[in-house]
């Protein structure tokens, strides 16, 4: 966990890609879950932020 936060602070690809992946997965789950309408409403923005973040951070140093 510490190495993950260190990676975020030092702008390392692995940690940021992990964060972006979590956001994308969370967005997809929010989009397709049958429980809370509000989660569905905000699903796209979460997925979009995750996807754009993923494209950007994949150019960070390893």
């Amino acid at each position, binding site marked *: 966990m510490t190495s993950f936060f260190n990676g975020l602070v030092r702008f390392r690809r692995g940690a940021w890609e992990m964060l972006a992946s979590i956001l*994308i997965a969370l967005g997809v789950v929010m989009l*397709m879950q049958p429980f809370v309408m509000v989660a569905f409403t905000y699903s796209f923005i979460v997925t979009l932020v995750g996807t754009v973040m993923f494209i950007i951070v994949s150019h960070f140093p390893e």
Partner: protein
Amino acid sequence: MTHAPMEKIARATPAPVARRIKGLSDRAIAWIFVAPSIFLLLAVNIFPLIWTIRLSFTNYRVNRPNRDVEWVGLRNYERILTDDGIWATMQATAHFLIWTIVLQVIIGFALAYLINKKFKGNDLWTTVIVLPMMLSPAVVGNFWTFLYQPQIGLFNYVIAFFTGADPASFSMIGDVNLAPWAIVIADTWMWTPFVMLICLAGLRSIPDSIYEAAECDRASKWRQFWTITIPMALPFLMLAVLFRGIENFKMFDLVVQLTGGGPGNTTTLTSIDLKREAFERWRTGYSSAYAVILFVTVFGLASIYVKALNKVKER
């Protein structure tokens, strides 16, 4: 001697062309060769994507080309993401996606595992199993409609044989609870062979020497399966899940032919709903926003999946 064909080609180049390209660098020549592909890619993929994103912020209707197009900002996105009907469509798609992938991976891998064992008629069985994949989705949808017929359908008689129920007492494509399963079964029947082929390629890539070494170490078959077969076939399994996941997220033809999205909207998947918005209700701007949402979702999922696949391959 090895350059002879190149020299022959150079000699065959018409003099005016040869004069024109004589002063070009290798890089420029490479660009000349690549340019048509790049142009085609921009024209066929990138331009429509940018145009769709632009349209998603407008109220454009393609059936009213002379009407003024208004810039509506994020209103289309807002309407889609607060629509109960679209939310239900997403849930239907999730049900279809999850169950088809789970069933296709389990059955496909099991079939590949069996086919990988050397036995008489192995090739014949491979061909027979692969047949459904070669059929057109429209044809598959059409004959599964007959198989699901309550009065004459073979499927109902098979279920009746095992459960003792009356074959005419249930309708797979007419019942709101059964219809989502009807499309899952038909898609699984059609596309399990595809997963099987990918898994078979994975299983055949595992060298026998690894199993022989495991035998020397007295590893049980069960242990060999979990510590050799599964880890080494995992990249192939993940590839199959990626392909089927993307394809099933966009599933259209088979379901339209089989249920037409009904009964009610229980089997209306996102692509069917999108087609209705775009080409039946003619709400082009709205459906563009819908398409952008689906595109971002598939793109995001594919990105993390490809990353996971690369990690597994690196191991």
